[in-house]
């Protein structure tokens, strides 16, 4: 009797499990379609990827990408402002269905959220410098003071590889102030953040003159359990199409972002050879 009960219980648990996994795999996607609205988490403080315009609306390159997703699905779009510290939690808790929020693709993050391949963007190390400094090559930094942020991993690389004298401050604000005061020839930081500064209009006499180094891929994410199901596969297709159609290059232009080598490379790599169709 006990044995029978036990078997029945096991069967029930397994059956329940099968049903729930079959359903759970597409839960979020089904919900989006049912309510006719997709909720996308984007940055609201990272110009020009995601920021608020004068009316308070969130706009930017990633907001446009979110709009593309909604248009393709044929649903309405709702943008939710997320921060680096809470973006993955928002996705896990179901506050957002999709996250496009300047996130670097890393192993530890892949364990928490479903990062969709291919990567849609990359960022790396570059410098912000006065146009009048006339920088063109990393090697020109040799022996010159370069402002940086304390603890940044590329400080060591830039000083070891190119012989720059890193003058590192506690925060970005101090480092940028020191650059403005002319205490260093350049400010070394993440290129996407530098582009954001350039786009802000406060750095009109400045430029980002060097080739970006240590490219670091960005990933957009769906809930972890939906990565290999409809939602993840659909987003994979979206990214693929963004690359091949040149949409990302178009968006970079629209938002005044310097062309990223990765996006150009991906377009060339993923483009379908249609010569046989002639």
């Amino acid at each position, binding site marked *: 009797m006990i044995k029978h009960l036990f078997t029945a219980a096991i069967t029930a648990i397994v059956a329940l499990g099968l049903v729930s996994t079959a359903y759970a795999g597409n839960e979020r996607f089904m919900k989006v379609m049912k309510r006719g609205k997709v909720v996308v988490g984007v940055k609201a403080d990272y110009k020009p990827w995601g920021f608020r315009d004068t009316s308070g609306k969130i706009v930017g390159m990633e907001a446009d990408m979110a709009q593309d997703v909604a248009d393709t699905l044929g649903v309405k779009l709702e943008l939710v402002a997320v921060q680096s510290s809470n973006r993955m939690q928002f996705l896990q808790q179901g506050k957002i269905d999709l996250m496009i929020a300047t996130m670097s693709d890393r192993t530890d993050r892949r364990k928490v959220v479903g990062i969709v391949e291919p990567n849609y963007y990359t960022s790396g190390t570059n410098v912000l*410098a*006065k146009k*009048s*400094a*006339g*920088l063109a090559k990393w090697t020109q930094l040799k022996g*010159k*003071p370069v*402002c940086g942020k*304390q*603890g*940044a*991993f590329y*400080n*060591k690389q830039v000083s*070891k590889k190119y012989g720059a004298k890193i*003058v*590192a*401050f*506690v925060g970005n604000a*101090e480092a940028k*102030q*020191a650059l403005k*005061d*002319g*205490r*260093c*020839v*350049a400010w070394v930081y993440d290129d996407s953040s530098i582009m954001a500064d350039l786009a802000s209009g406060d750095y009109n006499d400045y430029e980002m003159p060097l080739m970006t180094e240590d490219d670091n891929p960005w990933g957009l994410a769906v809930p972890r359990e939906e990565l290999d199901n409809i939602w993840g596969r659909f987003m994979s297709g979206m990214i693929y199409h963004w690359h091949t159609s040149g949409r990302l290059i178009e968006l970079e232009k629209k938002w005044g972002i310097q062309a990223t080598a990765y996006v150009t490379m991906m377009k060339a790599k993923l483009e379908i050879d249609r010569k046989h169709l002639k």
Partner: protein
Amino acid sequence: MEAFYEWFRWLYDDTGINLVIFYEQYERERFVDGFLNTLYLSVICVFFSVVIGVVGAWLQGSKLKITRNIVQGYIQFFRNTPPLVQLLFFYFALGTGLERWGLMPVYDAGGWNEPMIGNFGWAVVSLSFFAGAFNVEIFRAGIEAVPTTTKEAAESLGYTRLKSYIYIVFPLAFRVCLPALNNNLVNLVKTTTLAYVIAVPEMMYTVNQIWSDNVNVPEMMTVLFFVYVALVGVLVIAMGRWERHMKIPGYGQ
């Protein structure tokens, strides 16, 4: 020496205790540079702060009210503001301001400005004046402990105010205030760590960068801790010896 370094690599491989500053040359040089900068900064600041203390205490006894007020203003300004705020103020506000108003010579080094006083200079100015303000008060306490009768005796022997300060009052006052001075100088050496906020590459700054690059925060924290214990220990021992050396039998003992 090489075997000694290798032992630390073995320690890391075997136990996970990563004392990278021993087995990797780049990190070792960085650490030594940081240590030397701390030492250099400490010695300079200790010297200037004592000079400021001695001169300030003398000026405080001036007959002119204005001189006394200036010294008092200086003490209040430096004693009542946190040294961290002073460093930032000197470097970012005053330093930049002086350059902008043309009060401090600056030369263009090709893309950046090399001001007459850089971050190290401002750290010396700020920390010396900060500790100096306390030193003035410390020396004043010593001077006030010298009996009026002694001063009058000096005057009756024809000493001027300056001469009596140099030969009679100060030597006696100095012995009285050495323990308090000792405390303040120890504090000063410890306060030099704050110079990292204006990017002076002293030990705190360097070690911070080392643990960021090697993710060995607990190890480097420990190293930092013990190096400071040793550094301040040396200062305390030296001051203690000096104190004993200057002892006058029957005075202040």
